């Protein structure tokens, strides 16, 4: 007997279910198909190629009117279902028709999620879901600006499609890197680079605040940092929500989607559901492969055949011309999981495999996805890869081939890449010299001058030798930054500058990092190098900092912290001392100590009290003393001409000026200064990183002292006739140290490596270079010369509190 089957929603899943039914049992059901959109089924995932102009709408229609007519499907397109009566087993259409059913299929799909920003209901704010949305975007041209909110699969396809039409597109993404659900940071970095090359502006870690309008129409998107992005159209592509309203009204069991079992049956035995509206075993579905599986299972269930829907591994590919990327499986870090990472900076290729128990469980590929199917089958089949592990990452063609070449990154550099910054020598000049017979470092040095000055590029020169000469060159062992890389600090610093690497992900990609996100050794170093070399471009990463610099206080052995407010030049007053005394009482500070740097240390403060104690100290004008930082610590002074009968200059005043100029700056290691008002040197300036001794005729500036693990007396840098010149020399020296030293080398080690003469040439003799150093320091200070305590009190205070307090729950 023919049964009545009503299907709600003509989408890709229900389309496949109908195909299966009419092919296998053409007479089993009278099918009625409702669809709210005024058309039948088309291949929704091909809307992006339609938008980009690669296909037409007609080409992506999967079922036309003739097909429905031929298979006897009654179409009610452009009609919504108003009501379902499960007891009576009837469906009521919007026009009031009541239709009986024996079986009912929900294919109601999903709704695009619209962020409820102020202005989201303005004309010109759309989602990217159906043909109408696509047509709106296709109407945009070279004179238009469009903002896309959402850097996921759909948002990027929309952006690339419009950019191909010449539209000025900006993508705004809330997370730190694009497609964060499918890609790791390294692949996200390469994708971003490719999109920028297509002329798309990409803003990551950007929070949308409000959509601005004019006469009811969208005008611009306002970000919470105050940036306004003008636009004629705003596309929100931030995700989908299963459309479960009708199912809920009908009393079916729903969670985030309509609950179905393995047979795609809902909580009512005569009602099935397929597609994006369902929730199966806790999972929702947005990609097409599982939807087709569900459709076939639902059709088989209706035909009383035994079938089960099983969730499978799925893979993702982005449909953007020129951006080849692929991700599949689980690529989270984990114990017992190992990464195999391959990077080829020249071709922009990144591959990462995640291995567990000798099987590949996840893969991310960018740039070259030719072998993606092979890797995907390894994941699906859980193939034992123990025997091919060594060469696995190179793909199926290389099984039994060579292992990775650690020199790949250097080999990939173009001939015009600068290797020696001091003498302006490029890779090509070194190669030419080698081919002309310079076959070791000394010969390259004498013929080209490369690495003949500061020597930090020695490692790179040696690698160029190794790449050019092959086995004829034996590489001297050099200390790499850490186990994540073969490169030395010097190599990495050089490449950050010469290759304009401005993010952690960029450094790790272009320098061939072997781990996905570094370790506690390399991340703080890279974070410093990036912020020192690219103060405007690079955003400081607190998670790559040691706890002291992340929480702006010194951790103690019991996990409490010490708090040291700045006392400029060691000068304080009654107000500040009262505030310190009050804070010591209020926060039960167990130890108050006077430090060697002429200020007061409050030891034993609880982490959660930090913002409050800072707010109290801020209230009398005190700021962070950075006693915890690889940065400027203190400027110790004596009382100078103000009070001392031997004083020759205003040493206290100069100390305060130096501290006000330098505070907040980050350096490779801590930096301490002192200014003494006469050669009796009461401020002990000759064992500081920079020491100034005042004399009748001016200021003697000396550098590279130490009184720690090593004891060193400073060496004379220059004598300055004026106070301003003493300040200039100090700033220029600190900036030179910031730009060239290895992370965690104090200035005396930096000077030992580069030579005091090399330092003097730049800081003392070359006045242009001195001015340029000061200018670069000031540029950096425009970002960093501010009180981190005040900033954390107003913006991050919550993060110092426990995430939750379960004292009560635990007691129950």
């Amino acid at each position, binding site marked *: 007997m023919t049964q009545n089957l009503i299907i709600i929603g003509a989408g890709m899943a229900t389309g496949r279910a109908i195909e299966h039914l009419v092919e296998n049992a053409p007479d089993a059901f009278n099918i009625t198909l409702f669809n709210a959109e005024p058309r039948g089924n088309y291949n929704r995932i091909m809307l992006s190629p339609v938008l980009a102009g690669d296909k037409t709408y007609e080409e992506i229609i999967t079922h036309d009117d003739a097909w429905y007519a031929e298979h006897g499907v009654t179409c009610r397109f452009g009609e919504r279902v108003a009501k379902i009566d499960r007891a009576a087993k009837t469906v009521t259409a919007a026009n009031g028709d009541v239709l009986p059913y024996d079986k009912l299929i929900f294919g109601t799909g999903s709704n695009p999620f619209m962020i409820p920003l102020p202005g989201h209901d303005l004309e010109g704010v759309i989602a990217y879901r159906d043909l109408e949305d696509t047509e709106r975007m296709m109407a945009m041209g070279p004179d238009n600006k469009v903002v896309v909110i959402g850097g996921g699969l759909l948002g990027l396809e929309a952006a690339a499609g419009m950019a191909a039409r010449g539209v000025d597109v900006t993508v705004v993404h809330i997370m730190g890197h694009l497609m964060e659900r499918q890609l790791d940071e390294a692949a996200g970095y390469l994708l971003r680079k490719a999109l920028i090359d297509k002329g798309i502006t990409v803003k990551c870690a950007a929070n949308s605040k409000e959509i601005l309008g004019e006469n009811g129409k969208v005008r611009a998107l306002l970000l919470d940092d105050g940036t306004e992005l003008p636009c004629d159209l705003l596309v929100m592509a931030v995700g989908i929500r299963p459309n479960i309203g009708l199912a809920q009204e009908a009393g079916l069991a729903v969670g985030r989607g309509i609950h179905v079992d393995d047979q795609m049956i809902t909580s009512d035995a005569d009602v099935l559901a397929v597609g994006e509206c369902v929730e199966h075993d806790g999972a929702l579905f947005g990609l097409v492969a599982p939807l087709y599986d569900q459709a076939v299972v639902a059709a088989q269930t209706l035909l009383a055949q035994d079938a089960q829907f099983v969730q499978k591994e799925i893979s993702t590919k982005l449909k953007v011309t020129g951006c080849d990327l692929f991700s599949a499986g689980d*690529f989270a*870090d984990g114990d017992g*999981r190992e990464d195999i990472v391959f990077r080829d900076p020249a071709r922009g290729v990144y591959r990462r495999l995640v291995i567990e128990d000798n099987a590949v469980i996840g893969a991310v590929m960018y740039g070259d996805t030719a072998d993606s199917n092979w890797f995907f089958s390894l994941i699906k089949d859980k193939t034992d890869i123990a025997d091919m592990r060594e060469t696995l990452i190179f793909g199926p063609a290389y099984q039994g081939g060579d292992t990775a070449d650690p020199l790949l990154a250097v080999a990939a550099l173009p001939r015009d890449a600068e290797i020696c910054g001091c003498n302006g020598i490029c890779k090509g000049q070194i190669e030419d010299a080698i081919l002309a017979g310079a076959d070791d470092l000394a010969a390259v040095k004498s013929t080209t001058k490369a690495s003949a000055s500061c020597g930090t590029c020695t490692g790179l020169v040696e690698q160029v030798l190794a790449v050019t000469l092959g086995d004829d060159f034996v590489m001297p062992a050099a200390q790499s930054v850490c186990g994540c890389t073969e490169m030395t600090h010097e190599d990495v610093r050089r490449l950050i500058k010469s290759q304009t690497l401005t993010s952690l992900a960029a450094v790790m990609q272009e320098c061939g990092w072997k781990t996905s996100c570094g*370790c*506690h050794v390399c991340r703080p170093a890279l974070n410093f190098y990036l912020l020192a070399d690219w103060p405007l471009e690079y955003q400081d990463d607190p998670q790559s900092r*040691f706890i002291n610099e992340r929480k702006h206080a010194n951790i103690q052995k019991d*996990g409490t912290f010490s708090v040291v407010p700045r006392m400029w030049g060691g000068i304080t007053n009654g107000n500040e001392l009262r505030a310190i005394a009050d804070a010591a009482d209020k926060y039960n500070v167990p130890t108050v100590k006077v430090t060697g740097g002429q200020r007061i240390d409050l030891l034993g403060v609880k982490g959660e009290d930090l913002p409050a104690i800072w707010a109290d100290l801020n209230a009398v004008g005190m700021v962070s003393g950075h006693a915890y930082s690889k940065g400027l610590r203190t400027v110790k002074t004596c009382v100078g001409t103000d009070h001392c009968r031997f004083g020759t200059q205003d040493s206290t005043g100069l100390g305060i000026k130096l501290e006000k100029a330098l505070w907040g700056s980050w350096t490779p290691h801590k930096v301490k200064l002192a200014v003494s008002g006469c050669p009796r040197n009461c401020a002990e300036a000759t064992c500081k990183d920079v020491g100034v001794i005042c004399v009748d005729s001016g200021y003697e500036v000396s550098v590279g002292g130490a009184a720690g693990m090593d004891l060193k007396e400073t060496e004379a840098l220059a004598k300055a006739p004026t106070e301003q010149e003493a300040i200039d020399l100090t700033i220029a020296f600190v900036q030179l140290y910031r730009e060239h030293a290895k992370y965690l080398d104090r200035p005396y080690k930096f000077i030992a490596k580069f030579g005091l003469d090399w330092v003097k040439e730049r800081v003392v003799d070359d006045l242009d270079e001195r001015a340029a150093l000061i200018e670069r320091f000031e540029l950096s200070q425009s970002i960093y010369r501010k009180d981190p305590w005040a900033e954390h009190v107003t913006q991050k205070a919550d993060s110092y509190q*426990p*995430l939750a307090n379960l004292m009560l729950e635990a007691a129950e």
Partner: protein
Amino acid sequence: MTNWIDIADLNEVPRRGARVVKTRDGCVAIFRTAADEVFALDNVCPHKQGPLADGIVHGASVTCPLHNWVISLETGLVQGEDNGQVSTYPARVDGGRILLDATFLRARAVA
């Protein structure tokens, strides 16, 4: 039997970072990796009781802020040359919320 309790929004813990949850029996550190997995461990290093939540998170490990012991977030085992283990607790993310197993936390208080 598990008894999942809602702790907080995932975004309240920074990527490659951690926050603590206070319990009657000391703090439990909730870690979030670069890949958005969460792990719950006692906030105490087996070496000298360092607060692990203040460490640097890399891959699925954390480095203790006091003496750089590296601890696996998945097993709690100390990595490398050193020996020891930190207690771990079931934690998961559902719908962007961090969940902890209250039964497990309570068992810990009794133990």
